[in-house]
């Protein structure tokens, strides 16, 4: 679990990769489509895509010409879940601390 999250978080640490994911959240795209708004070469984008692919955050289509890139929801869901759980841990603990503090003399 932690190894998977480490890969996800490492992939998310880069702003370009986050922007690529944000773009893919609107639908699949080719490397050319993805390179256009970033003022980056296609090889540079491909490098970022490899990191995202290794983290399981995106997958590539089979179409040999275009090989469209699409978002994979599961690792993102796991990373988000980790953070939600973290928040929940403290929110629920502190609610119980409220009650305890009321009872203390």
């Amino acid at each position, binding site marked *: 679990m932690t190894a998977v999250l480490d890969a996800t978080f490492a992939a998310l640490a880069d702003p370009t990769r986050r922007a690529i994911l944000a773009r893919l959240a609107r639908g699949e795209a080719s490397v050319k489509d993805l390179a256009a708004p970033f003022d980056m070469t296609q090889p540079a984008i491909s490098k970022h895509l490899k990191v995202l692919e290794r983290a399981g955050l995106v997958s590539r289509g089979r179409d040999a010409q275009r090989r469209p890139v699409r978002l994979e929801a599961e690792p*993102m869901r796991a990373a*988000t879940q980790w*953070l939600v759980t973290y928040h929940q841990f*403290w929110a629920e*603990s502190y609610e119980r601390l409220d009650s*305890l503090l009321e009872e203390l003399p």
Partner: protein
Amino acid sequence: MKVIVGTGRDIVITREFAAPRARVFAAHTEPDLLMRWFGPHDWRLTVCEIDLRIGGGWRYVMHGSQGQEMVLRGSYLEIDPPARLVTTETNVDCHARADHESIATLELTENAGRTTLTNTIRFPTREIRDAVVASGMDRGVAQGYDRLAHTMETS
């Protein structure tokens, strides 16, 4: 409760309590008190060992409703009651590697009998912190992120 992203590898939690800070501090350092509040609602803190001195260790064992077990442990770096408590923390199960140690700084300020708690957690890697930043910046990335942001702004 508010969770914000600090500088570097930090996440900062702030929360107000309707009690003087001496009580809030005690609730963080006395095992019989900690056992009554620490952990999410479906977990119980079953073992709570505290050696409250600089360099002294602490160890919490928690049990979930499905029989899961989680062990947290660390040591005390600074103890300044009722204002400040700095500890190291390792989640024994999740972070098998020794470098996965976070540092938690608890700061308590008091105003008119109410306490503002600030819990700054410095994570072992910047990636975790950056993922939180990502959650705020790229809301379109995944539907879950909206829920996350919402959760973090409320309650």
